[in-house]
């Protein structure tokens, strides 16, 4: 028997209220061979990102004379979901996510500072439990900051769905598979400019506004958390760097 997404008591199946984000967890500087790395958990969605560059492009032909090229690789671990999926060489859905990430960060990174160079972003989804794109954007954002690449602002992202007559924030896998429309929004929090807006299902225009508003609210919450982490991490870094 199907359960309601939000109970009349106002709780979702995992105990959250409609406007609540999941627990999140951040870590940066995990690898030494790359310039920046970050690990983000949002609920059980886990994402690992490494950033290399700006550096000389591996394929010369790809370089641009006036700015840096951002390339994105996106991969999903075979054990990341409920059922095992063998690794696929070319997966259209993955290519699309990669393209979306690339567009997002070309807008945020000050690419004109590094002409004829490449910034390589590798995203590995370790576990999937909904809102994968939003988690990936948040993780890339932290990895880029970890790499010290100049950006105009953080990029924070959040998803929301619309069910019944109200939006719900930060969908998990079970909510996603209930077939409701899901909007993923990426924001430059300080200017509140939207850099990415992705939705693949139908949603009535009247409902888009409350959904987008809720997403925006979620992005700002995410920004608070990420900013707090970066602040504490850099403090930690200054404390331990001399001895390391």
């Amino acid at each position: 028997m199907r359960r309601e997404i939000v109970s009349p008591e106002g709780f979702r199946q995992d105990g959250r209220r409609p406007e609540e984000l999941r627990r999140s967890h951040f870590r940066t500087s995990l690898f030494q061979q790359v310039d920046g790395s970050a690990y983000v958990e949002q609920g059980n969605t886990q994402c690992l990102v490494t950033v290399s560059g700006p550096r000389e492009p591996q394929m010369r032909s790809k370089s641009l004379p006036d700015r840096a090229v951002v390339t994105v690789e996106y991969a999903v671990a075979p054990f990341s979901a409920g059922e095992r999926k063998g690794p696929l060489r070319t997966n259209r859905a993955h290519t699309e996510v990669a393209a979306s990430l690339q567009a997002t960060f070309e807008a945020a990174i000050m690419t004109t500072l590094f002409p004829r160079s490449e910034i390589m972003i590798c995203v590995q989804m370790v576990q999937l439990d909904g809102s994968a794109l939003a988690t990936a954007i948040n993780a890339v954002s932290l990895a880029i900051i970890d790499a010290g690449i100049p950006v105009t602002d953080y990029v924070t992202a959040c998803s929301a769905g619309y069910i019944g007559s109200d939006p719900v924030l930060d969908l998990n896998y079970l909510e996603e598979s209930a077939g409701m429309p899901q909007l993923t929004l990426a924001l430059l929090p300080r200017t509140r400019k939207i850099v990415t807006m992705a939705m693949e299902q139908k949603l009535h225009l009247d409902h888009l506004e409350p959904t987008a508003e809720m997403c925006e609210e979620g992005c700002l919450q995410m920004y608070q958390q990420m900013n707090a982490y970066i602040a504490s991490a850099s403090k930690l870094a200054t404390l331990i760097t001399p001895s390391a």
Partner: protein
Amino acid sequence: MPLSTAERLFAAEGIAASLRIDGRDPLDARTVELETGVILQASGSCRARVHRGSQVLVGAKVAIETLDGASLGAGTSTGLGAALGQGGGRIVCQVVCDPSVAATGGGRCGAGSGRPVDDLTGECGQRLSELLNSAASGIDLASLVVIPHRVGWTVYVDVLVLDLGGNLFDVVLLATKGALCNLRMPRATVLSVDGKQDYDISSHETERLRGAEAIPLAVTCYRVGRRFVIDPTLEEEDCSDLSLAIAVNAAGQVCYMSKSGNGASHGSLIKTMMAFATRRVPELLRVADHCILQQGTRTRAIQGFKV
């Protein structure tokens, strides 16, 4: 940037003088850190990180498969058929690289002149698969059979290489052992009605993989010049022309051996390597098993060790 001849020589001569780039002895290994139960979606998982070295994440998932199931691809069912024919389930291993590893150095290991990454992971997966599916692995493959000749469990071991820092196979095997000891699978109950058999699967993961504790570990010996080193860095690996992976169990028996590299060698060096491995691995097993079994609970815990 490819390793230059001078750099290569520097590394090789250092080893000849028992002086490695990072200051270790030729037969010294780096510290390893293990963390099990990291991936909830997997039935068993383990992350192994070598200090300033490779880092791998292993997720093991189980699937119950039927031979005559139309939904199965021909490839898998033949593999399953062969396994069930021999009275056992099977373990399917695959090693893939994180895109950042694959992308560095244009898909070649280390500084660029090394082997292609695909080649390395392919070899690693092949070795893992051969070892785990053999009787010498200690895993009770027969316990994976649900209905003889028809239905059996397949354990999928997926290795994700997060960072490449040399000596991949030893780390992968260690992490795989960690994941398989951490593995809990549901119980399959066979139901018989009027001679026809079907199975039911419990809704919780309660069963250990029998024999996972007995999985051997490996020491791969890399020949550089006239000597050999273990646990090489990527640069050292690049200098080696021959390596021999030797898996040994707790009783000191050699369970699996595999040579790679272009070089050829006299039996005497091989013998030395084997003698070293049979001495070294039981020692390693004692420490590693202690570490793995202590983490037998399904909570996340990180523990480092060094032999």
